[in-house]
């Protein structure tokens, strides 16, 4: 190279804008007393049915709302709106994950003082959402018994950013010969000590355990 060069140290985050926005959002939610839970999983692992059942249960005690992310369609929002709580769809177009500014835009016009808990369903994807902070307090990663016990080993990064894991569709466990011991081993191999809940949204078994854990976190926040 003919031109002389020198090195300028900068040390900054590549996703600085998203990180700053997420931090500001988290601060804003805390100021208004809103506890934020996000859900990530692969497509079809049962996030929406879980949300449907959880919204119903939570709405007897809390003022709840939900945001649901998808590349296309408003099907999930329409479905969840039947629960009677405020729901908004975030249609990402070609983007495979939610980012903090999408959350900020989606809550525009909502009176946050009138909310206790906000649930955010990410786009079905176990890879990309791991990189983006949405300003949430509690990130849940879900995987269903039909997906195989080794899901955590295949997607360790997302399990590393989560605060708890939920094994869904446990009503199908016997039919698909799901080995719970192996699944738990997989989770703890990529994230020692991560709390794991077992839920069937269909039969509603295990839902109360998770809601009670959420209550504890909410009260401690």
């Amino acid at each position, binding site marked *: 190279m003919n031109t002389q*060069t020198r090195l*300028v140290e900068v*040390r900054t985050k*590549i996703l600085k804008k998203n990180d700053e926005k997420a931090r500001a959002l988290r601060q804003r939610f805390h100021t208004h007393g809103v506890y934020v839970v996000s859900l990530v999983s692969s497509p079809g692992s049962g996030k929406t049915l879980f949300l449907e059942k959880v919204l119903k249960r939570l709405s007897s005690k809390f003022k709840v709302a939900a945001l649901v992310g998808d590349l296309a369609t408003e099907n999930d929002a329409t479905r969840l709106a039947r629960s009677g709580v405020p729901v908004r769809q975030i249609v990402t177009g070609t983007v495979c994950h939610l980012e903090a500014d999408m959350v900020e835009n989606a809550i525009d016009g909502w009176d946050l003082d009138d909310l206790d808990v906000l649930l955010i369903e990410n786009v079905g994807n176990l*890879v990309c959402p791991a990189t983006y902070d949405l300003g949430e307090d509690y990130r849940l990663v879900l995987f269903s018994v039909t997906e195989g016990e080794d899901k955590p080993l295949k997607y360790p*990064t997302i399990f590393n950013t989560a605060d708890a894991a939920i094994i869904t569709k446990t009503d199908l466990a016997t039919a698909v010969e799901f080995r719970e011991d192996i699944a738990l081993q997989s989770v703890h191999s990529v994230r020692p*000590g991560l709390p794991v809940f077992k839920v069937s949204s269909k039969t509603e078994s295990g839902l109360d355990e998770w809601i009670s854990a959420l209550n504890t976190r909410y009260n401690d926040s």
Partner: protein
Amino acid sequence: MHELSIALQLIDQVQELAHQRNVHVVAVQIQVGELSGVVCEALQSAWELARKATSMSEVKLDIEAVEAVGYCGNCQRETEIASIQLHQCLQCGNWIERIIRGHELDIIALQVET
């Protein structure tokens, strides 16, 4: 795959940094952690594509991959982990308490013309 969107945000950031410092950037040095959720090869390809229509079409991207490092409560120190699928201390075999390095997605330095 979100590497293209990461590359676009990286370009925005570098342009802003170059503008603030009034420098002409030749290369960008970044660190990508093993647990950042970003694949180095995919990011390099995305960079080649994303820089094309910008003022940085000649700017090189040097990616340093950072291996995950954990803290072992038993050894009471930083430790290499067996793998990102197996968060065990390589020294004593205990489960590590937390990840210390491996989540990086950082711009470290800019190589600029003098």
